[in-house]
């Protein structure tokens, strides 16, 4: 006879507010097979777990149902408690009374009725549960980090320094990401390149790191501990094993006017190029789209110039298959394109620029050698207007979120400008100044008090371009309560931070969730900030949400520690929720083999003692099966069942609802 215990959680007020937990407990106590029913305010807390453990022992329970939050949240917690009390953890089931009931309903009476049903369903199921045992799978102790910005660099170095192998995949020709483009960094104004480039070199020379620059993830198979990732090494047209990075080739390249991505379009580059002088690897690639040889078949200037014979116009993309045990996604961000803001010129005016363009103007390695000169005519602007929240916090632009870093970098921009153009005016239009962070508020005060940045609280309604080239900025000073017009020479827009283009496709490949803005979703916003819903895939940096450098680095180190934790054991325990073939009834039609999305079902020959094949059947590979149930549905002889979700269990749930 089944002896089921039911434990109902109020989840503080989350469930208790809408569901009458005492009534559900009373109803549960009367359900057939239930020998114990009790409710408590926080079942997941230590006293709550103790109640479960104690009851398992004292009441000799054969099954437990916990009515609480989503199993995604606390099923592992409760199953661990059950195991500690000596009950097989798979004899414990959860009824989701929070996400599936109290959070989505308002009518208390009806919600309570539904909660009773939800509990009864699980009581029926658990009566048919049987003991299952975790499956052990070996782990490939190599990590892949996707994205070579500061977050990816940090994660790669931490994992490598922890003694594990790392493959760092970067889609552009050099690692360094956006941080390499910055001039100085807040709140200390130390030079971005000076703190970053040594780390880039460390990545390149680290014995545990394999750097795959100019490469992209093409496809992913497998699961935690055993991912098979196919990486596309894009054609570089330069044999990097021969190339010394001497620069003869790009000096001779006749195509010299391509807007440089690294300089945010303000500088120019050649068709064979390295993105910037401190690039790692410090080797060039040929830009297929602009190279005359590759598009028209004539030129060959770089091949002639190269003394090492490293140029290869016939180079082709190469697909490489790599086995890794864990993945860190660190794909970073882009700036939103402000041309949607018609009132700011809609991207028509050269002197209305974005934050990266200002960084390049202020950078000593930038196109103006660090002099602030406006793009249209190269003059030094005497008045610069900075507009914060351009796209961010603007529902009309589809972005309700705060981009987090703009308040700080705008203060930094104003400061850098004033340090270089002492008599100039820096006017900043802002909605709020959000300077939460160590030394941040002080930094903003410094911009205002020591450097004389003029902060105006209000929005800009319109920018005109007058015939003499002045940008007329019309806005409101909402503290003074009056309209305001500034005649500016340069306008810098703090464009919203958005995920990288293509990041959604990558998320789909790895099975990682993303929010409506396209940022990758962490497994739990508070308690599991670097994990994802895909086991073995972790997040670092701005791909998860807008982040500054300190936050990106912290998260990268956290992700690295998760990877090292995963690799600390040679084997991985997996939930035994897998399909099982009844070999007595299997007719070997092979429909399941064709249907399995994971290639987890194989042909198997049953032999007698003499080695003669007596029957051919399908057999599930426990290591590969993900428990999706596709084969169960497709099996014509009804010979496959899913452990933990057998037909018997599911039908008993349905039947009890009638």
């Amino acid at each position, binding site marked *: 006879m089944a002896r089921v215990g039911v434990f109902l959680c109020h989840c503080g007020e989350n469930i208790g507010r809408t569901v009458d937990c005492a009534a559900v407990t009373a109803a549960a106590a009367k359900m057939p097979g239930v020998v114990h029913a009790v409710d408590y305010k926080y079942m997941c807390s230590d006293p709550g777990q103790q109640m479960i453990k104690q009851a398992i022992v004292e009441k000799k329970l054969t099954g437990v149902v916990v009515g609480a939050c989503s199993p995604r949240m606390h099923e592992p917690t409760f199953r661990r408690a059950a195991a500690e009390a000596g009950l097989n953890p798979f004899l414990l089931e959860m009824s989701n009374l929070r996400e599936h009931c109290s959070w989505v309903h308002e009518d208390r009476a009806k919600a309570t009725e539904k909660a009773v049903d939800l509990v009864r369903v699980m009581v029926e199921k658990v009566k048919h549960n049987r003991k299952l045992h975790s499956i052990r799978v070996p782990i490939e102790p190599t990590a892949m980090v996707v994205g070579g910005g500061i977050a990816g660099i940090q994660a790669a170095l931490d994992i490598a320094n922890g003694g594990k192998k790392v493959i760092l995949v970067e889609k552009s020709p050099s690692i360094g990401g956006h941080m390499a483009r910055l001039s100085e960094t807040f709140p200390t104004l130390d030079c971005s390149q000076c703190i970053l480039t040594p780390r880039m070199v460390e990545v390149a020379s680290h014995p545990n790191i394999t750097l795959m620059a100019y490469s992209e993830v093409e496809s992913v198979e497998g699961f935690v501990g055993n991912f098979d990732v196919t990486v596309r090494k894009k054609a570089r047209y330069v044999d990097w094993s021969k190339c010394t990075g001497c620069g003869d080739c790009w000096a001779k390249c006749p195509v010299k006017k391509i807007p440089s991505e690294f300089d945010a379009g303000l500088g120019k580059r050649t068709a064979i190029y390295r993105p910037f002088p401190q690039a790692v690897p410090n080797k060039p690639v040929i830009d297929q789209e602009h190279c005359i040889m590759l598009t028209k078949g004539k030129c060959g200037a770089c091949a002639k110039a190269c003394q090492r014979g490293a140029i290869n116009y016939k180079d082709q993309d190469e697909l490489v298959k790599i086995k890794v045990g864990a993945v860190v996604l660190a794909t970073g961000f882009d700036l939103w394109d402000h041309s949607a*803001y*018609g*009132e700011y010129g*809609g991207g028509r005016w050269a002197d209305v620029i974005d934050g990266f363009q200002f960084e390049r103007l202020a950078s000593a390695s930038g196109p103006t050698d660090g002099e602030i000169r406006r793009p249209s005519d190269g003059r030094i602007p005497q008045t610069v207007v900075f507009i914060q929240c351009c796209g961010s916090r603007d529902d009309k632009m589809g972005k309700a979120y705060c981009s987090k870093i703009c308040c700080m970098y705008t203060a930094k921009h104003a400061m850098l400008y004033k340090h270089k153009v002492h008599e100039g005016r820096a006017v900043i239009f802002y909605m709020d100044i959000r300077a939460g962070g160590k030394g941040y508020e002080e930094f903003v005060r410094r911009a205002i008090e020591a450097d004389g940045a003029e902060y105006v609280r209000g929005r800009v309604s*319109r920018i*005109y*371009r*007058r*015939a003499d080239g002045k940008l*007329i900025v019309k806005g409101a000073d909402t503290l003074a309560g009056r309209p305001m017009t500034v005649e500016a020479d340069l306008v810098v827009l703090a464009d919203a931070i958005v995920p990288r283009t293509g990041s959604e496709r990558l998320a789909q490949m790895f099975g990682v969730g993303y929010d409506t803005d396209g940022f990758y979703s962490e497994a739990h916003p508070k308690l599991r900030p670097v994990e994802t819903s895909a086991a073995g895939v972790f997040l670092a940096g701005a791909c998860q949400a807008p982040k500054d450098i300190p936050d990106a680095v912290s998260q990268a180190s956290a992700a690295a520690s998760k990877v090292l934790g995963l690799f600390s054991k040679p084997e991985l325990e997996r939930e035994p929720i897998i399909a099982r073939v009844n070999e007595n009834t299997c007719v070997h039609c092979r429909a399941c083999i064709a249907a399995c999305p994971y290639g987890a079902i194989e042909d198997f020959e049953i032999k007698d003692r003499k080695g003669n094949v007596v029957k051919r059947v399908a057999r599930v590979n426990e290591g590969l099966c993900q428990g999706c149930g596709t084969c169960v549905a497709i099996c014509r002889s009804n010979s496959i069942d899913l452990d933990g979700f057998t037909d018997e269990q599911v039908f008993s749930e349905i039947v009890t609802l009638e």
Partner: protein
Amino acid sequence: MKTIGYFPGCSLHGSGRELDMSVKALARIAGVELKEVEDWNCCGASAAHNLNHNLAVALPYRDLALAEAQGLTEILAPCAACFARLKGTHVRVTRSPELAAQMREITGLEYRGTLRFVNVIEFIGRLIEGPLKGKLAPRLAGLKVAAYYGCLMSRGEDVIEDEDHENPDGMTAALEAAGAKVVDWNFATECCGGGFSMSNTDAVLDLSHELLADAEQAGAQAIVTGCPMCHSNLDMRQLTINQRGLGSHDMPVLYLSEVVGLAAGLEPKDMGLDRHFIDAMRVLDIASAAQTAQAAAAETAKK
């Protein structure tokens, strides 16, 4: 579009008569019958919503109910303010059953929300794509114009739906069909002073002056608008602006319908072009002078 409901409003019977004349003249040659809404009343314009929100909805609501009851399906409201009030009221009462019930009670009339609204830009767009297709001559070739939308031809995302609110270009196709060159200028959507024409004339003078100055700077020889309020502020107040010493403007201000009418070969006087404060009859002369000069230049180049 054989027939369309017509809502002239007060402007088209007064200061905006040229708009009325030119739209009717265009409709005539295009073979479109304009059926005036019978017993229409004031739309509330810029005054009602400053006094009483219910009044501001109830006035146009009555017009909508009448037009619907008269079997009309589409209403052309050439005046930009009338268009905004009528369509805005339609949007509000169709979205809020409570407001609709309130309006039913106030007016004693039922509006079921079946009407569609057409402003002068859309009307002309449909004419030149339809009955007037191929019938326009580029008679204004050589004339540089600033297309002026103001607030009522660009704003209100539920009222002006198919337009870039910040950089509208709904007039461009019609102006180019008439041969005119549309200049790039800054003030296409800025305020002319609107309804403050009487109550705060100084503000109107300042705003309209800035507008005229920017159009001049952009090289425009005329301003084209679809709104009678913009028209009266820019055209009628221009002399006062000059008298106050703000500028020395001499900028013809035309309705879009007048420009298209000229291209369609209509007689200027039939559209009231001779009624403007700033001489508007000259635009044809400016254009033909430019065309002659261009032809001469082309001749010289050939030699």
